[in-house]
């Protein structure tokens, strides 16, 4: 095979993979949006209607009227933001301590605990945790949800911050600051934190997405309709119609919860990727 035909073959393979993946990834989204906008009589048509004759925005109006969407989205936003803050503060402190003082016992124990708690099936502490929250009066509260979410995100975020610190903050810089009489907290706030902003951003995006997408905890811990985050609220909304009875309404609700997440992510994805990459290389 000569060089030219090999190049062409590589090009074909390259674009075949790109096009296949694009269809695989995007088609579900296309169908979701399409279903929410299709006129009623085209929904069940066979063969399926791939491009509708006109767009019917009526579903959006109906969902908006029937479901407290803003309330749900507001709950999600509030809980996810609080989770991000709590998780970020704790994980940054902890990750820094592990990355700088590895040789000592407490750090070692903490590392083991963090890795361990990532590996435990989420369902193992689940049942007992529910009773702890119930007895503490924290079910049906925002605090309870924030506690649950942050602790679930802390281990991964800690390890992410740890690898960011050990890769991007040179120890020599800190040593010279120590010689100049700077305290350990001083070094942390004046040197380590300012250098690590990209890592902090990546970690917060991760924590935020965890909170935004979470479903299992919220469905068990909340029965109060006013506090439900969007994931549970929309699940209940879809459930009340049944999976197949009102497809276009369900898909409309689905579009409304996905859109904020995708927009948020589109703006910040490059930080997430660089932050994850920093962690990925060393594990």
């Amino acid at each position, binding site marked *: 095979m000569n060089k030219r035909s090999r190049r062409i073959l590589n090009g074909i393979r390259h674009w075949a993979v790109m096009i296949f*993946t694009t269809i695989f990834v995007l088609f579900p989204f296309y169908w*979701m949006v399409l279903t929410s906008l299709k006129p009623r009589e085209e929904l069940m048509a066979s063969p399926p209607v791939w491009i509708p004759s006109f767009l019917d925005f009526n579903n959006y109006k109906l969902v908006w009227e029937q479901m407290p969407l803003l309330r749900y989205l507001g709950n999600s936003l509030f809980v996810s933001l609080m989770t991000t803050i709590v998780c970020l503060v704790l994980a940054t402190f902890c990750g820094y301590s592990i990355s700088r003082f590895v040789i*000592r016992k*407490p750090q070692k124990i903490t590392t083991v605990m963090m890795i361990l708690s990532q590996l435990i099936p989420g369902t193992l502490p689940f049942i007992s*945790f529910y009773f702890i929250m119930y007895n503490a009066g924290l079910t049906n509260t925002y605090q309870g949800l924030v*506690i649950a979410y942050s602790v679930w995100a802390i281990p991964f975020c800690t390890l992410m911050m740890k690898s960011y610190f050990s890769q991007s903050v040179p120890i020599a810089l800190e040593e010279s600051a120590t010689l100049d009489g700077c305290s350990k907290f001083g070094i942390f706030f004046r040197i380590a934190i300012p250098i690590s902003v990209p890592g902090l951003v990546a970690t917060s995006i991760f924590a935020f997405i965890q909170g935004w997408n979470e479903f*299992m905890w919220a469905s068990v811990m909340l029965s109060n309709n006013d506090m439900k985050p969007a994931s549970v609220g929309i699940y209940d909304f879809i459930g009340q119609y049944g999976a197949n009875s009102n497809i276009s309404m369900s898909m409309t609700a689905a579009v409304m919860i996905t859109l904020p997440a995708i927009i948020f992510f589109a703006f910040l*994805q490059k930080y997430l990727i660089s932050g994850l990459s920093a962690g990925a290389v060393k594990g």
Partner: protein
Amino acid sequence: MDKLKKFVNKYTPVIMLLPALIGVLIIQIYPSLDSIRLSFTDKSLLNPITSYVGFDNYIKALSDPQTWQTILNTLVFAVLSLALGAVFAMLVANELNKKFRGRTFFRAMFLAPWVTPPLVTSAIWQLLLSETFSPINGLLMQLGWIDKPINFLGNTEPILGFLSMPLISIIIINVWSIFPFLMVMFLAGMQTIPAEMIEAATVDGANSVQRFFKITLPCLMPVIETSILLEGIWQFNNFNISYLVTKGGPLNSTMVMAVDVYTEAFINFNYGSGATISVLMMLIILFPAVVYLKKQLRQTDNI
């Protein structure tokens, strides 16, 4: 005052890690241990007095053929979604690692399933795979490949003894949602491979397939090991896809252990037997978990 400052400075490392450590201990480690205790009790909503019943729950669970079917389903689900997801992610990452127009655009677009709430993922795919509304069935019928719609999520007829259409369906759905994370991990690893190495191989006449298997893959091994172990454990514990798409049905054909625990504990309100299943889960995951833990600790020591 000076003494206090010195004290704080000396114990700064410990002060820094205590809050997170305490949180994890109270909210994950303690309840995990307590769940193990619960698994030896008959605690349930209907039972006003909880008493210890020894290994009764375990004997009951393990003598029920459904439990074994659930364990098998869980393993098949985790292994197949991981294998398919990893191979697919590798293929895409390898192509994304080349320089071409629109590369960052494609990369960002392929990450979309990852940030899609699991609830939405399952709602869309339920529609895509439903008997009546499915555009996939529609297309296949339009092309004349099939005569009547395939009931992707309803046909429980076994395939090869351990698979069924609904199980295959939720595996495909799961691949859709997990491959982006693996892709990012692989891509990040690929970017650390020195370009000179690839160039040298090209000069020596290696074609792209040889370059992939002789250079890219061996260099990526550490990243692959870590992400596959971690993702494998996550998929073994996966709750969302099975619960949200099929609720473990029809006829338990997609029942995985995490959903079983949830159903036992929070729908049937048998907390004791729910906890038993979760302990069984932990026992199965123990071996890969220990491997992962050891690997991580070795890396920590090396820093």
